[in-house]
Every structure is written in structure tokens, then in C-alpha cells.
């Protein structure tokens, strides 16, 4: 399946990646190439085949509802680009 440049722009927006206008054409071509290869899947009849999401069919383990973590927020926030009063800072979102 081929994708057009408008679709690539839409996907890039969903993926939160800015794409420079000068890069759009080449990116569209490359992604079309990948999707063409992927489309070989469509020739296979998979009716009734149960999808396999994880190789060992594992189920989520449950644990006791207890506190198991210690408070290490200082270390974790210490590597953030910007924090203040234990909060992560981002550009203003509400005027």
C-alpha cells in the first residue's frame, strides 16, 4: 500500500515527530517501500488464526498489594531537563 505525503504528515503528527518539509518526499518514498514489503502478508489466509501477542502466552503475574518501592524521586528527578518543587517543568499549556 502506498502512502501519500499528507498521510506521512498526519502520522508524524500522531507520533509527535516534526518532519522538515524538505524531508517529507524522501521519507514518504522510504516508508512506502517498507509498507510494500510488509504487504506480502496480505496474500496469506489467516482466517481463524488466533493472534500471538507474546511468544510464551504469558499472563500477567499478580503480587500482594504492598509498598515495595522506596522513595527515590530525588535521584529520578535529578536527571530531568527542568524541575521545580519536585515537579517536572514544561512550557506553559494554559494561558
Amino acid at each position, binding site marked *: 500500500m502506498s502512502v501519500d505525503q499528507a498521510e506521512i504528515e498526519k502520522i508524524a503528527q500522531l507520533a509527535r515527530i516534526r518532519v522538515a518539509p524538505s524531508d517529507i518526499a524522501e521519507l514518504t518514498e*522510504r516508508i512506502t517501500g517498507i509498507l510494500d514489503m*510488509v504487504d506480502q502478508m496480505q496474500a496469506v489466509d489467516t482466517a481463524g488464526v488466533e493472534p500471538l501477542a507474546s511468544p510464551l502466552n504469558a499472563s500477567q503475574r499478580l503480587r500482594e498489594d504492598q509498598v515495595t518501592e522506596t522513595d527515590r524521586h530525588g535521584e529520578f528527578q535529578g536527571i530531568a531537563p527542568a524541575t521545580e518543587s519536585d515537579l517536572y517543568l514544561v512550557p506553559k499549556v494554559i494561558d
Partner: protein
Amino acid sequence: MSAHTLAALSQRLGSGDVSSVEITRDYLARIEAHDPALNTVITVTAEQALADAEAADARRAAGEAGPLLGIPLLHKDIFCTAGIRTSCGSKMLDNFVPPYDATVVTRLKAAGAVMLGKTNLDEFAMGSSNENSFYGPARNPWDPERVPGGSSGGSAAAVAAGFAPAATGTDTGGSIRQPAALCGITGLKPTYGRVSRLGMVAFASSLDQGGPLAGSAEDCALLLQAMAGFDPADSTSAEREVDDYSSGLEGDLAGLKIGLPKEYFGDGLDAGIDSTVRAALAEYEALGAELIEISLPHTHLAVPAYYVIAPAEASTNLSRYDGVRYGYRCEDPENLYDLYTRTREEAFGAEVKRRILVGTYALSAGYYDAYYRKAQQIRRLIQQDFLAAFESVDVIMGPTTPHPAWVLGDKANDPVAMYLEDIYTLSVNLAGLPGMSVPAGFVDGLPVGLQLIGPHFDEARLLNIAHRYQQVTDWHTRRPAL
């Protein structure tokens, strides 16, 4: 020093013939002298290594023993190391110093291993050539004009170059086995869930698995013994006892049934690799094994299914890199949307962006059934092919890669050609099986890998099968002149 296997070094440490500090110094000196030409190590942790080595020597002096006590290792720079930059080959994490160790790192530390540094890789482990690294490509020590493979290219090239007796790697679609093959060393991708993924930077969570790269199957057994095991902090870790990987290495191969998938010996396979692999299979026959042609009929669908599933999982996993909590942040964002989109534009490389976009597309409204669900159905068919084959054979063998190491840049502008280099390794990850690559000879001076694929959790048997071959051949001991 470089010719010494981990097992031999371990014996010398045990007998007091050498100290960990001495061998650590030797390896650090070798890295310093020769790595500038090969670029296999992103961060050398010399100070830490010498401190680790002194501690290991003290533990030995106090009566402690253990095969990894005092053994220097390199870690792929995808495993988090507390206090030491973990870049994952990306500008995004160039400034990332994790506050904790990956479970693999913790376990190897506890066994007394010494960390020499962190190895080069394709950005976020996405690639088959190591050319997608923010730190520049690692080079193949057999011919520095050629790629070492990827994504664990730095680890494989470093072991081949004698910068460490062994290294850790990760394998999402062949990223341990393919570089091991291209660099002429031994690599093992364990069963999905055998080795903890905690602290291993996530690429595709249902495929990612850590494992060892080393000079022999015997060495891989020693490393896997320390790396494997249940980890309650990894929700997909297998709650299952770890086998003793060394005790069964000598087991007899008489009557071993080896399945040869006809799909692995067809069009697209280099003639030199074909004949090299067949010569290895003849060695197995001489050891008493029986060769049986089998079919894995959905093999041709592994690349398409993988390139939906892996990008889809990657697009989800890599959404965490938003410039807010850690890692790169763009300068002077105008607003939150600009912060996200420009941070990700500036800090992700071209291949990572392509995969995120393909994954986002495959998961987006209207395409989910045609792509993601379809790929998961094909994944089931691929796994069923293997499970059916293992009803009549003990192990599956074939080439690890269709070609030997190629010249840098040759496939860099054609993502699909690059993806097809992993045609024999991807299905093993889709099915969650253990796989190995073992050196089997050379084509035009470049190493060739024999791939061994086993049933789930049959690592001990794979190691035994590889070890017996290495007792009657010496391909695994060949090293390039630097």
C-alpha cells in the same frame, strides 16, 4: 591475552597465576591502543574497572571462588548502569545517567565480573550494521572497511578484537547472532523471558532478549548461568528454574536429529556460506547426528510480520522520550507540542524515526486489523511451524546470515535490503525460541556463522551441541590481526 577464553582466564585467576587487576589493565590497554580504529566502545570505564578488579581480587583472597570472579566484560550500551552514561547509541540518551543497574548488570556484578565499558550499537538497537549509531559506526576487525553487523555490533567486534573475553548483547531480530556471525564469535539469544529485561532499554518488548557474546559455547554457558533467572521486577520473566548450562556440555551427540529447513538454503543465500554451512553439517554427521530436511513454510513472512510488530512496539516504547523526564530536550520550546516534536526530530536518527512512523501507521485507526493483527496471526503460524518441526527433530540448523559482512554504506540507503539480511534470525524472535550463532569457517577471509535453533528453554542442549562442534573444529579460536 586476547587469545584466552573466559574459561581459561577463570582457571588462571583461580590458580593465582594472574590477578584480575593485571588482566583488567591488559584489556584496557588493548582497548586504548586499538579501539580508535574500530570504534566498538562508546564509554570506557577504566576507573570503575580497576576498582571492580581490586574488589574481585580481594574476594578471591578471602577464599571466594566463581567462574566470573574477576573476569572483565563489556556491556552493550543498552543496559542501564548506575552512575554511568547509558546512551543506547542515541543523541536522545547522550546525557542519560541511569540511577539504577539493569538486572543483567546486577547479576554479573554479584558474580564478580569487572565492567570495562559500554559498547557501540545501532541507535535503540534498530539496525543490522551498527551504522545507525549516534557515535559513528563500529567496524569489523576482520576488515575495518566492513560492518560488524548489528545491533550488538560493538560487543561482537570488541570480543573478536580481543578487547574483552566476552560481552553482553541484546537480540530483538538477530542482534546477537548476526554480529556474532559477521565477527566470527559465539553468541546466544536465550528463550524469551529467560533473561530479565529490567533496565534494558526497551525496543520491542515481546521480542527483546539479552544474552552473551563470547569466544566459545563453553564461555557462553558460564555467562548465561549468571545472567538467567526469574526477576519479579520484569513482568514477562519466566518463573522457571535455570538449568546447569556447563554440566551437560560434553553430552554425546549420537542420534541427534538435526532439522534443515529447506527455506534456509534457497535463493538469496551466498554460495560460499551455503558450502561452509554444509561442511559444518558434515562435521555433525561425523559426530553421530542425523540430518533431516524439514520445512518452515511461513519463513518468507517473517520479515514482513517482524517489520510490523517490532515498529509497532517501538512506537509505543519510544513515546517515553518526550524531553520532559530525562534525556535530550530541544532549546527554547515555544509550547508543549513544539517541545515534543522538535525534541524527537532533533534527537532521533533516521532509522528510528522511520520505524516509529511505520509502527504508528500500523497501529493507527483503520489499519490495525490489516497490519498489527494480521502480523500477530502470522506470528502464530511461524511459531506453529517451529513447534511442529520440533516434534521430529531436536535442533534446527542453517546459516545465521545470507551474506558475510558487507562494506560500510553498501546498504545504508536501502532499509528493505538491510531488513532482508535478518531473514534467518527474525523468526526465532517471533517464536520466542533460543538461538545461537557458532563460527563455521570463512568466505574470502570473512567469518561465517552456523545458526542453531532449539525448543523453548533448551539452552543447555544448544550449548552442548555447539560445544561438541567446537571440540572438533577451531573456527571459534581464529582471531583477526589488528
